[in-house]
């Protein structure tokens, strides 16, 4: 089996993988980083979004082997010294999550959205999160959270 090496949440990792292993499987099964979720089988739901080299990517659309040498950040890598990332904190403050299953992907997408649009209006946020499905919240409090986080992230 081929070997793949990458940096995940700041740590160098290396493992043998079957060539068909998706990045999301690699994260969940080889690294036990189970915060990245699988919610569908057609790359629609966005529960598996992670950052690869700083950009949000659905981890079910890329093979582990394609990410040789990449810098990957998952939901587990956001909090620093026990302090939640401003996006995580805003989701808590505005009740932007209920069951929590879509939340990691939603948070990872939202961070990239704010990076691209530092001062997003409601329409930009709603359209920007179109690739992430949430069945619980009706999105309203997610939108509020992203707006607050954008303000707090110095947008």
């Amino acid at each position: 089996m081929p070997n793949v090496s990458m940096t995940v949440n700041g740590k160098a990792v290396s493992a043998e993988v079957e060539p068909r292993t998706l990045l999301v499987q690699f994260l969940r099964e080889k690294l036990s980083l189970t915060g990245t979720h699988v919610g569908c089988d057609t790359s629609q739901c966005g529960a598996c979004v992670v950052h690869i080299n700083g950009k949000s990517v659905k981890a079910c659309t890329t093979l582990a082997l394609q990410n040789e040498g990449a810098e990957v950040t998952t939901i587990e890598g956001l909090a620093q010294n026990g302090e939640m990332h401003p996006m995580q904190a805003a989701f808590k403050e505005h009740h932007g999550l209920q069951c929590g299953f879509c939340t990691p992907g939603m948070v990872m997408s939202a961070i990239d959205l704010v990076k691209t649009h530092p001062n997003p209006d409601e329409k930009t946020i709603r359209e920007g999160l179109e690739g992430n499905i949430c069945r619980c919240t009706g999105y309203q409090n997610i939108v509020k959270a992203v707006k607050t986080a954008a303000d707090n992230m110095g947008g």
Partner: protein
Amino acid sequence: MSSETGIGASVRRKEDKRFLTGKGRYLDDINRPGQAYGVFLRSPHAFAKIKSIDTAEAGKAPGVVAIYTGADLAADGIGGLICGWAITSKDGEPHKAPAHPAIAVDTVRHVGDQVAFVIADSLAEAKDAAELIEVDYEELTPVVSGADALASGAPQVHDDVPGNLCYDWELGDQAAVDAAFAAAAHVTKMDIYNNRLVPNAMEPRAAIGDFDSGTDEIVLYTTSQNPHVARLVLSAFVGIAPEHKLRVIAPDVGGGFGSKIFIYAEETVCAWAARKIDRPVKWTAERSESFLSDAHGRDHHTTAELAMDANGKFLGLRVNTVANMGAYLSTFATSVPSYLYATLLAGQYTTPAIYANVKAVFTNTAPVDAYRGAGRPEATYVVERMVERAARDLGISPVELRKRNFIAPDAYPYETPVIMTYDSGNYPLNMDTALKLIDYDGYAARKAESESRGKKRGIGFSSFIEACGIAPSAAVGSLGAGVGLWESAQVRFNPTGGVTVFTGSHSHGQGHETTFAQLITEHLGVPIENVEISHGDTGKVPFGMGTYGSRSLAVGGSAIMRAVDKIVEKGKKVAAHLMEASVEDIEHANGVFKVAGTDKQVTMAEVAFAAYVPHNYPPDLEPGMDETAFYDPTNFTFPAGTHIAEVEIDPETGVVEVVDWAASDDFGNVINPMIVEGQIHGGVAQGIGQALLENAVYDSETGQLLTGSYMDYTMPRADDFPSLKVETTNTPCPGNPLGVKGCGEAGAIAAPAALMNAITDALGVEIDMPATREKVWRAAQTVQQAAE
């Protein structure tokens, strides 16, 4: 509010940290040592005889541990899946309950029916081996719609169910309704379809069976809303293991909406197979399997007639519904289109005579069962579209027509003609509150402005009611329920003052860990960070009936309150001893025990410590501060409200924009307003999804599910909604100690009728859900051509 973390405070959720940092523990995140992986081979046909299954090649594939078929389950005496609610047809016959094997034996009856279970060392090996199983099918002609299944000569889904009729049930006084129609000045009639939905909790269902041959205990990890019910059914009816040798754990569960109430084939097979191979067996659904095998929702064809006098006063309602049950009866399927549906057909109105006839039928589709609202959305949809249509027929404002027929705020308790006794409410207040929120006075100007841009604007109302907090055990027992519907709670003080509450309710997004903790903080004065809520494990929680029917706070929260009462009662005895006073003189408030009329006091923490270190303790009192209570409600609760939708339609494209939404809901007392508002947002989103986007469609010839993935089934996304305006009114529920009514399903119940009423108001013609762009465009074009 006693504090910033007590009742009435929007306390930020205690559970959020783990979900936000990737530390939630959902089922697929759990792995057991030595675990094998299971894959179900599913039927590609809607209806076929299984002539033979050849597993020889598959059995030799790398990594394969075992392959099981329906014959293996039957050989072990594993019973079929059951339906737990007995319905009696109008001719006195019990409902037809055909066999529902966890793995098909000789016939498959819907696409996705289980045919074989392949277990291997890895998931990939199990999948590869499943491909090698040869099944020889003899295809039969399927039937997928409820109406078609009732037609003479229709394919017979079960040999022992003539005419595919599960039951033909009625409720209400038919003669009184006939008389009302005979006396009517006007009758409004509609054919209404309530479209079939796929629940689509974001976490797919999953299970791990884990058997300990040393103790003979099976631990079943499963994505359940009610682990104790799963244990009861799997022991008592399916025969997996005796109840004391079966532990069911439902860890963090990623949404349910009803679909995770039921006891499914897959978890049954995992629990059974773990013992067979003496290894843990894990199965996780792929989304396409969820589409095929999760219990679906709704799918009612209804004809309704409303009789009115010359002033628009409702005289009688006649409803005929065909409910599609799918191929087999899911766990509570029979109750949904009967007692959870027709009992709500009075809505918020004084309609004196109501008659409903419901025919439940089998088809070659996935089983249909409770989905957020379960019967009550179907009832509200019928009533509220009828009322709106009647207003249009009579040329009366839909607001005015509703107000003429609302049950008055001073009329409670109010007995409806369909066996419900509403306990409290204020329907005109909700209407007025919602009208203000939407700025109804400014609507005409907004409509004119839309027209100036070539757009069609519409406004629609839905004054919904639901019966939730299900339910008094004796009442539902008399209606056919096979279980009691109480709840239990254990409140355990630890010696150092922290509290653990064990509850039989199960949280899969509702925020119980916060709301329930607020009850303890409010009543026992324990800082909220010192309260832990434990749920979802039959090995920890005394007992429980789980979470559905918006019952957790009204029933589960009330059980906690009963346990709190016991804690206080015992605490008074300890406090009296510590302060050398008589028990009758001890007063308790907010975790402080005082001797009446003095400044002597001890805190709950001191009392709890004394109970565990009873050096100075009443001689006739048990040590410990740990109380369990069961609570059985005395009635349903009756949340009600009015939702108003405003839409703008582009007649050239059929695009419907939901431009505004106002909701005024009466949930009785509110413990955590932030969480309640979130429940409304989510419920309305599902209702808007149903009305605008979602539709489970089976091909009428092949029985294939045409909408079997997120590529085909339109899930609502962030840009499908406006920000909703939500307010609550608070008429306390007189029936439970918290005065609460339940808010989980309200949005999904109210929303579809409001939105469809707005869309049809804009279009000027009636259409059915979902109001897809094509359907709306065609309707708009037809209207335009007729006008030209």
